[in-house]
């Protein structure tokens, strides 16, 4: 027989002011199955919990209902209280009579009636609750970081420093990411490479860190504490164990027509290449698409010149399988494609460039060896126009609705650096707003305006048109309310950033949620900003939202702490509210398997005894460690064989019945 206890919380006056607590207690006490009902000022307080525990023991309660605030607040509190009193923690139900009742209804009568109904629904449900036991699962003491930019490197370093093994998977031939492409960083103007390369070296040298460059995550299964990951290590065509990084092969390579990705395609590179001088590992890759040996079978120059005999044309992709306890996504960003912004003449004129391209032009290792010059005729510009918010804060669907956050600051940086090095260049910036929230940010921007004489014009540019060897810029000055038509030598577009396009594929593999802009969603915007809602998946850097370097590094550290916190545990407690298939009802039709986002359902040929009929049937089996308890399968199942523990069909129906009574 059921022996249900009902505990009604006043929550000070939060509930008691609008809900007649006595009536709720009296009504609950009359419900069949209820043997105890009481109220208290603050049920969640230690004294309140003590009442619950005592009642459970004294009245030998088989289930309890707490009428209080949202279960999102204190469900766990009361589950623990129940457990301490010897009651299974899943024999607890919460009737939310605060957020869903007392706080939104003014009429006392109405609110009281509703509170009674909500209590009844919870009582009806708890009668059908079954004791559930949370299982445990192992924690593999190794973490995976996807992406080897500053975010990934920092996260990996912090995890490694805490004493755990960590692997970095980087898609390109070297770690370093976007930051390695930058020339200087705001607001201090220190050299990007100078602060990044020591970290890269540290990561490479760390005994706890393994770096897989030129590699991609291919498949992820498993769950928090025990992910199984397949990593595809793409064929480098160079034996990493033999290569000394001398660079002769690159020099001698006769194919020098491949666009240089590192320099944003502004110049060419050889078919065998390391992306940049400080690359880690300092081992080149053969770009098979552009390699003459791979295209025609003839050549083989690199193999001939390599003293170490490291060139291996036969090398194949390799699949590495490894288990991880946690996974950090640090896939970073790219700039958006500008094909929807024809008005800026990006595709028509080589002198219209993106800011990231400007970074490379300004960099001593870049296509112009650091000289500011036009890509069309290699002349030094006399005037430059910067256009802000290209594709950011966009109302139509050509660009992104969000602010890319870093553009205002790097544009100020670019303007300042140019004015500093080339004082004769006239620099104009068109902006919508200048956003400079950050330590020393506004001061930095003001220096650009006040000390370096950068012209800031509030207004947008409608069109950039190549005219002779000049660019004609048409814009408006909103403050002076006038149209502007000006000639300039170069135009720099502050192009919006977007998450790396590969992230959707990765998010799907990880079942991590992702928003419409392809940013990974954090578990809670404020309180859990580095956790994905999917347990064991953490977020680092711009894959979660636009960030500058210090923010990225901070978040990378935070993600590392969360990973370390997880890896420090030997076992994890699993959620017992998972799907369960009734083998006597299961048809083995595979509908449930198709809708399971976790691959938690498989099929087995099982011997069944269906009320005297013995036969072998194909039945669904749920891996309770993989199942997260969404319930998609329960509705896909036509026979009702699949049910969800803790939210069973009959429990929900009982609530429906109680509410509609």
């Amino acid at each position, binding site marked *: 027989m059921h022996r249900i206890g009902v505990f009604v919380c006043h929550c000070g006056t939060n509930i008691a002011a609008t809900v007649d607590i006595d009536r709720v207690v009296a009504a609950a006490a*009359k419900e069949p199955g209820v043997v105890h009902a009481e109220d208290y000022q603050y049920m969640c307080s230690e004294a309140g919990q003590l009442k619950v525990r005592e009642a459970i023991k004294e009245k030998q309660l088989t289930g309890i209902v707490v009428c209080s605030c949202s279960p999102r607040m204190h469900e766990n509190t009361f589950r623990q209280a129940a457990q301490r009193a010897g009651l299974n923690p899943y024999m607890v139900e919460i009737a939310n009579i605060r957020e869903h009742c007392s706080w939104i209804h003014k009429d006392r009568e109405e609110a009281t009636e509703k509170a009674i109904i909500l209590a009844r629904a919870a009582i009806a449900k708890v009668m059908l609750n079954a004791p559930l036991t949370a299982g445990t699962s192992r924690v593999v003491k190794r973490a995976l970081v996807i992406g080897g930019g500053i975010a990934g490197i920092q996260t990996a370093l912090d995890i490694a420093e805490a004493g755990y093994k960590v692997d970095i998977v980087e898609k390109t031939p070297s770690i370093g990411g976007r930051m390695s492409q930058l020339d200087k960083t705001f607001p201090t103007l220190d050299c990007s490479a100078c602060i990044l390369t020591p970290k890269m070296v540290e990561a490479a040298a760390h005994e706890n860190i393994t770096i897989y460059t030129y590699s991609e995550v291919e498949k992820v299964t498993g769950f928090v504490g025990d992910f199984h990951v397949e990593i595809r290590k793409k064929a480098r065509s160079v034996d990493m164990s033999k290569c000394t990084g001398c660079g002769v092969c690159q020099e001698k390579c006769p194919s020098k027509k491949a666009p240089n990705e590192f320099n944003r395609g502004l110049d060419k590179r050889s078919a065998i290449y390391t992306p940049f001088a400080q690359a880690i590992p300092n081992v080149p890759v053969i770009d098979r698409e552009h390699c003459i040996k791979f295209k025609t079978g003839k050549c083989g120059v690199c193999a001939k010149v390599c003293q170490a005999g490291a060139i291996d044309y036969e090398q194949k992709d390799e699949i590495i399988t490894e288990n991880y306890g946690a996974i950090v996504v640090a896939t970073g960003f790219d700039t958006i494609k500008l094909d929807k912004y024809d008005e800026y003449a990006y595709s028509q004129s080589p002198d219209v460039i993106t800011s990231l391209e400007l970074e490379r032009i300004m960099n001593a290792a870049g296509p112009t060896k650091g000289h500011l010059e036009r890509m069309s005729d290699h002349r030094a510009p006399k005037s430059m126009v910067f256009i802000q918010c290209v594709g950011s804060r966009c109302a139509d669907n050509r660009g992104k609705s969000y602010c890319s956050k870093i553009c205002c600051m790097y544009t100020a940086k670019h303007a300042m650096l140019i004015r500093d090095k080339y004082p004769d260049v006239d620099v104009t910036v068109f902006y919508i707003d200048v956003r400079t929230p950050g330590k020393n940010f506004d001061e930095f921007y003001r220096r650009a305006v006040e000390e370096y004489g950068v012209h800031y014009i509030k207004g947008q540019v409608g069109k950039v048109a190549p005219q002779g060897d000049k660019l004609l810029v048409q814009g408006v000055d909103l403050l002076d309310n006038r149209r502007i038509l000006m000639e300039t030598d170069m135009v720099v577009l502050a192009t919006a950033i977007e998450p790396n396009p590969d992230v959707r594929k990765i998010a799907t593999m990880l079942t991590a949620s992702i928003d419409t802009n392809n940013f990974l969603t954090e578990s809670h915007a404020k309180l859990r900003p580095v956790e994905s809602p999917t347990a064991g998946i953490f977020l680092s850097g711009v894959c979660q939202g636009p960030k500058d370097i210090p923010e990225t590094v901070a978040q990378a550290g935070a993600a590392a702490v969360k990973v370390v916190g997880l890896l420090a545990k030997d076992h994890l407690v699993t959620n017992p509210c998972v799907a369960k298939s009734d083998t006597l009802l299961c048809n083995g039709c595979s509908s449930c398997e198709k809708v399971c986002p976790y691959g938690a359902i498989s099929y087995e040929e099982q011997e069944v005894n269906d*009320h005297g009929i013995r036969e072998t049937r194909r039945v669904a089996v749920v891996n309770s460690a993989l199942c997260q308890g969404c319930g998609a399968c329960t509705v896909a199942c036509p026979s009702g064989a699949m049910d969800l523990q803790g939210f069973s069909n009959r429990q929900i129906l009982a609530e429906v*019945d109680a509410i509609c009574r």
Partner: protein
Amino acid sequence: MYRIDKSRLAELFAAISGNQDLFLPLRKADQTNYGLWSEEECFDLDTLKTVKSAKDCFFPQSEVLYRCKNEDGKLSIDPQKLCDRPFVVFGMRACDVKAIEVLDRVFLSDPVDTFYAARREHGIIVSLACHEPEETCFCKNFGIDAAEPGADVETWIIEDSLYWKPLTEKGEALTVSLAGLLENADAASAPDAAEKAEKAVAKEQSSIRDITEKLPLSHLNLSRFKPENTMELFDSPLWEEMYKPCLACGTCTFVCPTCQCYDIRDFDGGKNGVQRYRCWDSCMYSDFTMMAHGNLRTSQMQRFRQRFMHKLVYYPANNDGLYSCVGCGRCVSKCPASLNIVKVIKKMGGEA
């Protein structure tokens, strides 16, 4: 004997329903079934076989037995009121009338089913002879005469007239209440009319009997279906051959005028309390014999065998040789897999 113009049937029905409920075959959504008559309804006496039999009028597909309520911890039980109003069922064919006899033997023998008994007590059956029995009819095998359907009043529709012959006290009383409408054709008081009527009815009857005689299923051999053959029939390997197409649906049992099995179930209507009701059940259903310990008929073959053994062997063994099939042929035309009792009789009887 009495007579009334066929064109005045609506008036007759209005008069009957003035004093009591009247159930008769109604045409609704392209099908004919027994239903409660009202002026808006369209009656249909031409369709020989209603989809469901008239069984519903005495043994409805579902009926409440009692209700329980729990109000603030106080339990109350409210038994369902028994039928206490007279009603007339008009248009029952000979087979359906005979089926009532089959049901009576089940429900009126001890312990009496009070719900059924109350309906039988208050129900008056006006039967109707089958003008043209169909190919699927095989009532003749069970000693039923489609030309003389019996019951409280029997009627014939011949050309423009309906001839009305009360047979019981109840029938007489009903006839009296309709005196203004029914023309007297009694031999004593209206000899001319009586002669005409007798002649017409006799002619109709002989025509019906001629047709029945010629029907393809009218001469089945039932001789093997005897109590002494029970075990032999039960163990026959033929069941295994025959049952296979059976879909385990309940069509045959639900259209059958004699199937009498029911289940008792509860419905929790929330604040309205719990209703305990009964509803027809079908021995073709897999959970028909499901009990706490398990199911004692685990295969469809066993269920299939049960239905026909019951109709042709068990029931007659307990009821003076009365078969619990009346040859209405509904299952013959309605079985989705074209299985039916005729095929069983032929196969088990050694004919096919």
